[in-house]
């Protein structure tokens, strides 16, 4: 139970929890792990996902409309941990549901589920004092985002407080919608390498085997999000796990 990329490049699979429903998300996550995903990022649906593109935004809207709550996502994490003890498991959320639960309580409950780490999309290092303290108390890895627009001083601070891996955003913009892995990404990864020995995972717009191969040239892992969520969106619920399993299996082809 740790974040570890056994094959190169590693695969991180993002799923919006509760889309189309929590039981199906569990099956999809298990299929993703069994077909080669090293880490599952379990996304807490939020009403205002302003860093996400239309695909994940729609998934979030559907899950919120179904009444999926942070507590449900924590329960799901616990189930996944019990079913696949060796997989990496990261909780992914916007801040407000966490603030509503209370930072201290959230971190304690995240640890109880057996999750390895937490990524909060709209938490920057300057505001993270209490968050980092609670993560430490609970033995959880705080994962921060690094952007192509982050100057070196910010990358240093981000690398300094991250654990597990650093999430390098492949280009400026929202999730989804990219044809090619931009040159921004390799430059960002090489700048980050100056400051950390942690694995570096690249996300935003990674949607096929060619992208994963390209990312593997310069980074440790590829993060797939919108492509999975789009596939789930167009698959009947009972076929979604199989479809995602096949998709993940094909990413290192």
């Amino acid at each position: 139970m740790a974040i570890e990329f056994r094959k190169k490049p590693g695969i991180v699979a993002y799923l919006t929890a509760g889309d189309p429903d929590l039981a199906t998300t569990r099956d999809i996550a298990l299929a993703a792990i069994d077909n080669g995903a090293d880490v599952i990022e379990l996304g807490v649906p939020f009403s205002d996902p302003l860093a996400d593109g239309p695909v994940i935004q729609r998934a979030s809207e559907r899950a919120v409309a179904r009444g999926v709550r942070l507590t449900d996502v924590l329960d799901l994490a616990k189930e996944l941990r019990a079913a696949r003890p060796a997989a990496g498991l990261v909780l992914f959320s916007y801040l407000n549901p966490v603030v509503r639960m209370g930072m201290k309580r959230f971190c304690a409950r995240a640890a109880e589920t057996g999750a390895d780490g937490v990524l909060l999309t709209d938490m920057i290092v300057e505001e993270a004092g209490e968050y980092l303290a609670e993560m430490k108390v609970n033995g959880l890895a705080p994962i921060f985002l690094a952007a192509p627009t982050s100057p070196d001083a910010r990358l240093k601070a981000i690398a300094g407080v991250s654990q597990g891996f650093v999430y390098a955003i492949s280009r400026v913009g929202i999730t989804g919608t990219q044809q090619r892995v931009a040159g921004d990404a390799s430059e960002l990864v090489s700048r980050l390498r100056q400051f950390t020995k942690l694995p570096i995972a690249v996300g935003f717009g990674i949607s096929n085997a060619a992208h994963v191969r390209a990312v593997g040239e310069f980074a440790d892992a590829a993060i797939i999000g919108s492509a999975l969520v789009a596939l789930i969106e167009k698959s009947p619920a009972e076929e979604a796990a199989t479809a995602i399993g096949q998709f993940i299996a094909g990413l290192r082809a």
Partner: protein
Amino acid sequence: MSASSTTGATATVAGRFGAYGGRYVPETLMAALEELEHAYSVAQKDAAFQAELDDLLHHYCGRPTPLYFAKRLTEQMGGAKIYLKREDLLHTGAHKINNALGQGLLARRMGKQRIIAETGAGQHGVATATVCALLGLECVVYMGEEDMRRQELNVYRMRLLGAEVRGVSAGSATLKDAINEAMRDWVTNVRTTYYILGSALGAHPYPTMVRDFHRVISREARAQMLEQEGKLPTAVVACVGGGSNAIGAFYEFLPDTNVQLIGVEAGGRGTALGEHAARFQKVGGGLPGVLQGTYSYVLQNDAGQVSSTHSVSAGLDYASVGPEHAMLHDSGRASYVSCSDDDALKATVTLSRTEGILPALESAHAVAEAIRLAPTMAKTDVLMVNLSGRGDKDMGILARELDLKGSESVKG
């Protein structure tokens, strides 16, 4: 629950208003926010920048705006003297031009040629489109489709001024959703684009900067009040959506602790979540939280999902509120009440017929509170209402909501 126990911030961090404010944004925006903070702090101290802003506020926008004694309304209410700070007389018809002009000049100074903005009632969009035309900048305005329907006239005005208006159909298709889309655009085009945020909210430095561009309202009003009445007002009343006109009207009175500051939120149709935009009312569902870059009061359910809102006025229809208001609320320096859709509509009719002044529906919320309050006060008391904008834009709504047959009557 304070930010320091919730999010790890302390009151000494730049951009904090007590526990509130801060920066809660995707990392991609941080470099832009730091660049903006730096550019703004340099511009603030630059006499040439301030002189150009002052000159345009005077000759282009029409400042200072009058402080008008509403004699007939006062007589009808039979209590405190009611004064109106006439921001409705500004170019483009609302206080929003103060901030759009200030930020537009800042954007040009920073070398940004592309401007984005969001708008609820359209007044900020019109102000931004106007400033972009004046300064020769490209302009894209995001607006909820529900608001586009409610404020058709302002959509047309923006297009006439050369702006591209992009409709947003997500969520409740109102201001909150327009801000989400504007932030998505900014995240994507951050290297070339300046985001003129329209209220005193969002991540630092926006709440401070927007307040600074609007504090001219209270600076003028304070001096005018001393000149015209020989004393400060008993109370200052302003409507509060995001809170920009209110913070502008309150700010210079903050040290005058005998001046009551009263913010009026949209009470909408009722107290159930989704039926109003009253973030500070105890029964309403507003609690401290993080929305769109700042820590403040947010209308939300018990799972932390942001609630939809309702107001007859598109400009007050927002689930959060500027963080400085959150601080003023908690400290008690300002008090916040709410006014229903119906009372705002009635106040629109009353002010139109007593003074010949047609207020924006937003401002009518403040007028309604003054109408409620004035009769309870002594004739020696003075109420100042910030009339943040004029009501021309609301004609379509008024025509639908009011059943006018010569004397006021509001559809129940």
